[in-house]
């Protein structure tokens, strides 16, 4: 299914007709076979000596992101800075931005227009679902009408809000649903009307968030004009200590480069530590790329990826990998063994601090949920801490599984070392709130009646992704972003707590 036309030369144009120069100094003529062409210079500072390739025509080495976009734009070669029309493999939208995107699609292409491909659009209600807010409910109805009209293949609908389980199609948080339902594949281009669409980069694909206007455009054409980003490389080596999670790694990085450190750039995560992470942990890593301003994040696909995808998709895919001589804008190296559990203090994801240095911060509640920290592995991690402690939480602890599948896992999977107990049992024994309806929940506040929304000023430790003022509801709320380990540990003490107190 993935386009493999990048190296097909257009015989008609070969060599003889004048190739018109384009405005970009970096474009290389599309049709090159054995005729050698001038190598154009590139703008990014070179990291290493560029050696000519040994396979026939001379090519400039490319990063993963550059390769994916090259293939998707049917060009043999791309350099950072080029603007190209890219073929989109999958477009995702949800209840909040779907109606707007649909409105723009109809306005621009006509009321009777048809979407470019009814099988490449995935519509996932997840943001403002379990609420009596009429406008929020109306959003899902608008999605349904559109899906019926267009015969959209993948619409994860919900009709009965009183019991999520009786809605067989409903999934929950879009980014987790995309992965679980097999919509994420190496080498592909996935766009979504949500900034955390970058989560899917964990699968070795190009995935980024776009606005309603861009989405309306993609709905009609299946293409989008994208600017090729340069890549920042993050090399993480070393064995992951048993008190750290991927959330700590990404908080470390964001704290290092700031919320604008990766603006318009791709973030590539490699190294032995990354290779040791399971898919959900890789998703957590890529999820917060946008918090550093990043355009997309990527983790090279490997056996872990292929194994995860085995039972989820039968669509063929073709992974790509950065060339050895690919140029990266910068490279950062981390020795994981030296890292400690972190938090991002109010009110910015780059306001990094050691969890143990915040131990005097009294908290009012803990929230474990969202695409960032509400996956099965996240709940397993939290359960591990509660199990190790054996005590009860000192503050209200809200658990919001991201999807129906996660909810089921929480109620059925045995937690290692617990003698067969499930997460839900451990959570109950620890005095946590009952796991709630799967959705985005209070990560972004939501309508006033959203479960676990912060309606008064409070201090919350959360496994979510943003802590700007008002993020979870109240303008004066104080949110400490943390890993599920740290969140669970904090729940047990009533203060921001380093999980090593228990692990």
């Amino acid at each position, binding site marked *: 299914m993935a386009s493999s036309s990048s190296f097909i030369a257009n015989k008609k144009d070969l060599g003889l007709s004048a190739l018109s120069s384009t405005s970009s100094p970096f474009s290389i003529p599309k049709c090159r076979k054995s005729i050698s062409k001038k190598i154009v210079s590139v703008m990014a500072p070179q990291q290493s000596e560029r050696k000519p390739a040994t396979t026939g025509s001379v090519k400039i080495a490319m990063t993963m992101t550059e390769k994916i976009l090259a293939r998707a734009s049917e060009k043999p070669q791309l350099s950072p*800075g080029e*603007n190209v*029309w890219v073929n989109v493999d999958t477009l995702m939208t949800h209840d*909040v*931005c779907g*109606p*707007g995107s649909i*409105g*723009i699609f109809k*306005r*621009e292409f*006509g009321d009777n227009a048809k979407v470019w491909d009814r099988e490449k659009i995935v519509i996932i209600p997840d*943001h*403002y679902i379990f609420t009596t*807010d009429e*406008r*929020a409910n*109306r*959003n899902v109805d*608008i999605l349904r009408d559109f899906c019926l009209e267009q015969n959209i293949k993948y619409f994860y609908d919900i009709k009965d809000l009183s019991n999520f389980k009786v809605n067989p199609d409903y999934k929950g948080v879009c980014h987790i649903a995309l992965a679980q339902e097999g919509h994420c594949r190496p080498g592909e281009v996935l766009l979504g*009307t*949500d*900034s955390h*669409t970058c989560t899917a980069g964990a699968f070795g694909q190009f995935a980024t*968030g*776009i*606005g*309603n*206007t*861009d989405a*309306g*455009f993609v709905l*009609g*054409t299946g*293409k989008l*004009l994208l*600017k090729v980003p340069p890549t920042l490389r993050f090399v993480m080596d070393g064995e992951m200590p048993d008190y750290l999670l991927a959330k700590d790694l990404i908080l470390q990085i964001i704290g290092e480069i700031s*919320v*604008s450190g990766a*603006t*318009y750039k791709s973030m590539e995560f490699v190294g032995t530590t990354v290779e040791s992470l399971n898919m959900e942990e890789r998703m957590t890593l890529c999820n917060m790329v*946008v918090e550093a*301003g*990043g*355009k997309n994040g990527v983790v090279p696909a490997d056996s872990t990826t292929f194994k995860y995808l085995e039972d989820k998709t039968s669509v063929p895919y073709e992974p790509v990998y950065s060339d050895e001589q690919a140029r990266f804008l910068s490279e950062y190296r981390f020795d994981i063994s030296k890292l400690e559990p972190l938090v991002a203090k109010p009110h910015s994801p780059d306001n990094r601090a050691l969890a143990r240095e915040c131990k005097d911060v009294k908290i009012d509640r803990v929230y474990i949920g969202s695409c960032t920290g509400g996956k099965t592995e996240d709940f397993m991690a939290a359960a591990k801490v509660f199990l190790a402690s054996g005590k009860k939480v000192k503050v209200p602890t809200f658990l919001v599984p991201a999807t129906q599948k996660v909810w089921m896992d929480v109620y059925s999977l045995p937690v290692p070392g617990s003698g067969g107990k499930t997460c839900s049992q451990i959570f109950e024994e620890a005095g946590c709130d009952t796991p709630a309806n799967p959705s985005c929940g209070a990560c*972004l*506040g939501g*309508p006033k009646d959203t479960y676990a929304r912060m309606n008064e000023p409070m201090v919350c430790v959360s496994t979510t992704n*943003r802590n*700007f*003022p*008002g*993020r979870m509801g109240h*303008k004066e709320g104080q949110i400490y972003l943390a890993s599920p380990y740290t969140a669970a540990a904090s729940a047990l003490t009533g203060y921001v707590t380093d999980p090593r107190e228990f692990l």
Partner: protein
Amino acid sequence: MYPSEQKNHPRRVPHSCTLNPAEYEKLGSYALIGLPASYETRFIEPNEMKTKYSIVIGGDNFGCGSSREHAPVSLGAAGVAAVVAESYARIFFRNSVATGEIYPLESEVRICEECKTGDVVTIELAESRLINHTTGKEYKLKPIGDAGPVIEAGGIFAYARKTGMIPSQSG
């Protein structure tokens, strides 16, 4: 002209996510609603839909937060013509360009501290200059770059039609 040193966090636009295109004007009334109370002069007066200030001067990483288009759209709906900031968050910039709602310009230096709300300011697009008539100071703006053709066309759809990527709209 309205200077705002803070990074504009689009997530502070509340519940507007549930407004449909017909409620575009209402969205405008929410522009910059999240600014702290220390901003005594509000961007939009209570009970008004539009702002008196057609130019917003921002600090760095303007627009940081989410991918929602509501941020630039609400500014445009409120009557903002252009934003001049030190730097932009990617998605905010992209959405400004794609929608054609506001002109996102970058200044060479941080301007917001040298301007006061109510200053009369002109932007000479062709010359990439901002002139503050109240203080008499002039500032150089960065060229719009690759986004130029898309903005000049009027947004991504207009650009695509102009370049033949999609057919012209029929009545």
